[in-house]
């Protein structure tokens, strides 16, 4: 090569190298680089398998995975499984100690079942490991209610919350304005409004909620149950309250509310309920805050620009809200290297520095810093309303009740209750009759 060309060649290569470095270091400080280097050195080339379900949180993580792989050399394989199957799969894999999955998406609903079955590993050793979990991770920035209420069970940290949720009411601002209605403040308002809007216009129904036989029915019912004075189990004495007057009333209320919805609401899961509302078929919707991104997505939803939200209405027993969510955890049966690589993945995805990206990609906010970040609040006008709804969820906790009773048999109880509730909706049983039958079955389950 002649001299000028060689010089040019060196300059080009040098600028690429320097440019490449700055590309990597774009936005990330020295301590982040240090951690990334550590992870690259120890876990580069590992594949992490992640058992998950379809959720905006997972959509967000998937969008962020390419960058993660580029920076750390860890490949992530997602196995998206339907919610119901996921729970079974995790239980069976844990029983067989197969170690198929490294990272797990854990439903807070099921933690009480997962804990005794050793589905998820205790995360404290990982959190305390200074080289794996750097200072900039910001574990305590995660909203306390989520950290303690969703991620822990029996004082053991099983998961890092990635999608905390409470339930709130979405309503069609255009319809409410047209008929001069105010958004619901009390549960009676909610029912009255639902009855008002049903059939008001062609193909319009009052409200969309979950009612599919089994746990979906129970989940929808529980969204309204505590405010209406119902409870399945006394959370101090574990006495069965399935056929108590409060619970029966809450069931009758819920059935009445469901009857103001679309005719086939009896097979609705949260997916169909959200679709019905987003397609403009119902005037209201009372479901998870985590699904807000789907409703506000202009490419999928027809009501994105004409929807408002209010916190869960006050009932006769108080102003209560739900508290549930999803965590990411680790499998205790995974190989040590994949497990630690999985933890590096969790640290990256749920860290304070990536939280903004996560939310921008549709992830659900779980950190105080995110809820109070002015830029994000400007983009997500529902954040203050969600925060207020979380306040109502805190009311429930302060009154000594956890939305999901911390008992290993709780899921069996709500499965049975949801099963009977579905029969009441189908008109096969009366509410009191069904609850008396359920009471017997649940008492038997609790005494087993």
């Amino acid at each position, binding site marked *: 090569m002649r001299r000028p060309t060689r010089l040019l060649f060196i300059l080009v290569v040098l600028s690429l190298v320097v440019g490449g470095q700055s590309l990597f270091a774009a936005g990330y400080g020295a301590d982040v680089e240090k951690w990334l280097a550590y992870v690259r050195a120890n876990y580069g080339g590992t594949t992490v398998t992640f058992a998950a379900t379809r959720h905006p949180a997972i959509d967000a993580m998937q969008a962020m995975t390419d960058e993660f792989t580029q920076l750390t050399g860890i490949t992530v394989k997602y196995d998206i499984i339907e919610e*119901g199957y996921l*729970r*079974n799969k995790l*239980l069976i894999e844990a*029983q067989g100690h197969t170690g198929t999955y490294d990272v797990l998406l854990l439903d807070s609903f099921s933690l009480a*079942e997962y804990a*005794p*079955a050793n589905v998820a590993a205790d995360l404290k050793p990982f959190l305390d490991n200074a080289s794996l979990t750097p200072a900039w991770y910001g574990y305590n920035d995660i909203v306390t209610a989520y950290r303690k209420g969703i991620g822990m069970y029996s004082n053991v940290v099983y998961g890092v919350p990635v999608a905390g949720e409470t339930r709130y009411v979405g309503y069609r601002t255009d319809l409410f304005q047209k008929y001069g209605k105010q958004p619901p403040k009390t549960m009676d308002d909610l029912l009255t409004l639902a009855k008002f809007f049903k059939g008001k216009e062609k*193909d319009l*129904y009052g409200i969309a909620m979950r009612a*599919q*036989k*089994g*746990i979906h029915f129970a989940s929808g019912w529980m969204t309204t149950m505590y405010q209406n004075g119902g409870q399945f189990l006394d959370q101090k004495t574990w006495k069965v309250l399935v056929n108590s007057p409060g619970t029966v009333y809450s069931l009758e209320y819920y059935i009445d509310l469901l009857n103001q919805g*679309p*005719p*086939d609401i*009896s*097979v609705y899961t949260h997916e*169909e309920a959200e*679709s*019905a509302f987003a*397609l403009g*078929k119902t005037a209201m919707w009372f479901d998870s805050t985590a699904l807000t991104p789907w409703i506000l997505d202009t490419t999928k939803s027809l009501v994105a620009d004409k929807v408002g939200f209010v916190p869960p209405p006050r009932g006769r027993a108080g102003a209560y809200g739900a508290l549930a969510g999803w965590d990411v955890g680790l499998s205790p049966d995974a190989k040590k290297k994949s497990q630690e690589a999985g933890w590096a993945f969790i640290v990256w995805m749920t860290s304070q520095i990536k939280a903004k990206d996560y939310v921008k990609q549709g992830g659900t906010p779980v950190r105080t810093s995110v809820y109070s970040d002015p830029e994000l609040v400007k983009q997500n006008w529902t954040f203050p309303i969600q925060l207020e709804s979380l306040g109502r969820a805190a009311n429930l906790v302060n009154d000594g009740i956890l939305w999901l009773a911390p008992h*290993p*048999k709780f*899921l*069996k109880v*709500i*499965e*049975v209750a949801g*099963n009977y509730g*579905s*029969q*009441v*909706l*189908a*008109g*096969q*049983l009366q509410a009191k009759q069904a609850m008396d*039958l359920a009471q017997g079955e649940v008492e038997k*389950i609790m005494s*087993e």
Partner: protein
Amino acid sequence: MRKPRRGSYWTSRGYLLRFLLPSMIVLFVIVIVPMVFLWYVSLTNYDLGKGWDQRHFAGLSNFLMLFKGEDRDFWPAVLTTLIFLACTVTLEFIIGLAVAMLFNRTIAGKAVWMAFLIIPLTITPAVIGLMWKLMYNTEYGVLNFLLNFINLKINWLGPRSALLSIIMVDVWQWTPFVALMLYAGLQAISTEPYESAVVDGASSLQIFRFITLPLLRPMIVVAVLLRSIDALRIFDTVYVLTKGGPGNITELLSLHIYRVGFEHTGWIGRSSAVAIVLLIMATIITTIFMRVVNITRPAAIANRIEENTSGFGSAA
């Protein structure tokens, strides 16, 4: 070993057994072992939440609980399963036979029509469930969209129509199977009986009743038998469509087994007992069916045809 005569070594038991052994082992592991496990577990109170080590021997209590009525959804599930079985098999047989007869002639582009027929058979049942759930949706489903033009709106998955809807999906998926089997049967029938019947002056209804049906009997038996067994086992499609709801209207025995054993309640012992009941039911139904049909040798069929067709042309 005996001194091998020419050819007898190659057909000796020992030699043949060596070829059969691999598949026998696989079959044993896949079929016999789980079956024995099922029988064993049905006699315990194994609970998925509590773990394998916590199980206790429970004798026949799981079975007695079903028959004493402690499981409120068991007998409704049995009834629903039988109704489902009767409706789907009958509809599939009638429509399948009609389609097979329609195909049994020269048609332009027959291969293309046959390809269309095969499509439902090739789709995964769970996907079919999802597809139909979207189509059945009262608000944004295709069926109600079309019915809207004649001002009709049917609540497909509601309490009144859910059972009918799942029957419809099964008929949609499996009628082609019956049609193809019966078509193959029709193609295999020789033309001689038909020719002599026409000569004797038989009407087409008489031909159908006394020649086609009896000759088609073996295929009909196989098709109906296979469909009956499958109808008793169906799970994926119904689970995705309704999960057994609303109430317990579409809860077939297979769904009941799943719900009791895996849907949060985790009572594997109890659900194994229900599974065995379903197995016994299937065995009884198929045995009764075989007895009733009493399929015998081709000669006997030929004799019967002879008897049936001897009266043709005498009704002058």
